[in-house]
């Protein structure tokens, strides 16, 4: 479990200015229209205030996806490949729990002298950068469920998705000559069998809750509109299923739903008791980066008209000029 580094959120604050400075207004003419979320999209609610940091989801994720143990270099002295201790996402870890700590770290979900947990994995963007940048369609977004999957048999390992993801999700295994991109695929292999993602299935408190995005949004609405302290039955596993809920009280949430608008919106949403940047979640604007880069490419390369016209013009000039050069040189040779 890795401390969310203090520099992280300082940098997060830096991003706030960077994000604000994005040329959104100027780009209105260039960017293509934003993508809309599928009506049948599935998603997840991660409620940081319910998370107890047990990391059952990390272990279940490893088992469900056949991922190897991840032991950071500085822990190898006393941990010989037996205890999975990932500190962050990596080529071996698709899902990780991290902790925010401040001062005496006495109270849960307090910014000062407190601590809080955060779960990191793919947020399944509505308009994913990784899908947009991939040259060989190895990253795919399902048109119905909206799940973003990765196919290693297509992947050429260029790592543009790693570079481009605004959330820092896709990871490449650099220590393997046959390395692959690793990223959460929302246990799409289990969902095909009618099961739910392993992390939501195993979560004892309902901190990770699976369900259709529409129902997830309604549940978020219920939690945010209820007064702190009122009893609430927090569903577990999949929303609307008949698992016994986690009966607790509504905590003090910070304002906002992370993932509702970030980078064009995501299908995974976060609620938390401390500000999102403190949890290491990047501060992002509403525009999806892909809409800007694709808009630019579609403007420049619309039906390949500009390149074809340029080619014809260049070819005409080159032909005329070369003939002239040949004439000029003729008497000399």
């Amino acid at each position, binding site marked *: 479990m890795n401390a969310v580094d203090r520099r992280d959120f300082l940098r997060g604050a830096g991003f706030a200015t*960077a*994000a604000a400075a*994005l040329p959104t207004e100027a780009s209105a003419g260039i960017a293509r229209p934003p993508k809309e979320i599928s009506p049948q999209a599935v998603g997840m609610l991660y409620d940081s205030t319910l998370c107890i940091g047990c990391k059952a989801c990390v272990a279940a994720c490893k088992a469900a996806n056949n991922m190897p143990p991840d032991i950071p270099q500085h822990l190898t002295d006393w941990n010989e490949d037996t205890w999975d201790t990932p500190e962050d996402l990596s080529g071996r870890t698709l899902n990780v729990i991290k902790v925010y700590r401040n001062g005496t770290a006495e109270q849960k979900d307090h910014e000062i002298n407190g601590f809080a947990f955060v779960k990191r994995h793919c947020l399944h963007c509505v308009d994913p950068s990784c899908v947009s940048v991939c040259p060989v369609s190895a990253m795919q977004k399902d048109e119905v469920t909206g799940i973003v999957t990765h196919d290693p048999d297509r992947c*050429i390992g260029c790592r543009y998705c790693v570079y481009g993801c605004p959330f*820092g999700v896709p990871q490449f295994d650099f220590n393997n000559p046959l390395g692959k991109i690793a990223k959460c695929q929302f246990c799409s292999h289990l969902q095909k069998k009618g099961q739910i993602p392993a992390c939501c299935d195993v979560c004892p408190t309902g901190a990770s809750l699976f369900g259709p995005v529409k129902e997830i949004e309604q549940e978020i609405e219920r939690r945010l509109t209820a007064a702190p302290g009122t009893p609430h039955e927090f569903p577990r596993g999949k929303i609307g299923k008949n698992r016994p809920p986690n009966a607790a009280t509504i905590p003090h949430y910070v304002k906002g739903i992370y993932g509702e608008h970030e980078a064009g919106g995501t299908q995974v949403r976060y609620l938390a008791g401390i500000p999102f940047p403190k949890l290491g979640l*990047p501060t992002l604007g509403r525009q999806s980066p892909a809409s800007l880069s694709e808009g630019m490419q579609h403007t420049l390369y619309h039906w390949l008209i500009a390149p074809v016209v340029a080619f014809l013009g260049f070819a005409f000039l*080159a032909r005329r*000029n070369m003939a002239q050069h040949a004439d000029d040189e003729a008497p000399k040779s």
Partner: protein
Amino acid sequence: MSTATPLRRSLITPTTLVLVALVVIAFYFLGVRFLFGLGAVANINSGYPWGIWVVVDVIIGTAFGCGGFAMALLVYIFNRGQYHPLMRPALLSGLFGYTLGGFAVIFDLGRYWHAYNLLLPWYIQPNSVMLEVALCVMAYVVVLWIEFAPAFLERLGLTGIKRVLDRWMFVFAALGVLLPTMHQSSLGSMLLVMGYKLSPLWFTLWLPALFVISALAMGYAVVMFEATVVSKTFSLPSEHALISKLSLVVGCITVGWLVLRWVDLFARDAVPLAFVGSVSVFLFWVENALFLFAALVFVTPAGRASPRASLLAAVALLAGGSLYRLDAYLVGYQPLSNWSYFPSVPELMVSIGVISLEILLYLVFIKTLPVLHGDAAHR
């Protein structure tokens, strides 16, 4: 074109031996990379998945290879036939800049054995800027070899084939201008998706224009640098008269680049960020100072007249253009958590080896093929 001749010099010299040694070292580390993975050689990591193999060998390397593009634009499109003697050496440096850039991509790809997927129509993803760059660079490497082919054909005495090729050369000359315009601008467009991770000092919608204009300027600078160094090294007649004429063109392009860069910075209110103390801001100023120095030398008659100042300005332009690319891709880029990156020694040795191979092949080619003009004393 008929006056180009091979340089009759020995292929084995202390310089070429050092270059061979550097190439051998690079291949050793590449062997390690293929046996144990990218991480065994390079310091790239989850925060910085692209290191100098991408940025120096491909993004900067192909800009150094823009000599052929820049000269073709001037000679064939703008009909400045007087620069023809500079054409073949320019194409030659482009040939190696691009061919080795393509080679560098292969060893940087994590799953290189799938690289052919880029050519399978049922896999390609047309929204990807990377796809455009990849296909366009591949096509341009082929075009460069065809543009340079007359040198081989002359050497081998295949005048029949050369005559046919000459008749169709205008097609390749046109492609030789179009393709670099497309992919050099796309190397800027590749960063448009990085909006939230790239400092506003570099992130702008004008990235494609800034990249292609600076690539053009660097292309001319390479030609000037090469012509000066080669004529000095091999005591050939100086090309300075031609170069000083070319300087004004380069000066205007450089001024244009600076104007676009700064008007855009002001328009986006990004200028205050250039007065924050940090490494990236320092490099931002170095980058701009190098461009400004080159522009000042090239637009003033005194600067153009001095061979020394012109050479310095060409070097400044190459350094500035390289730094601009390095800054945009690595220095101005902010990963999401506290990752850092500095290339490892083996990683650097691989890039140095690639550059050495480029220089080595250039030397071999000018000594065996008709590339340079005016080697009268040794004919």
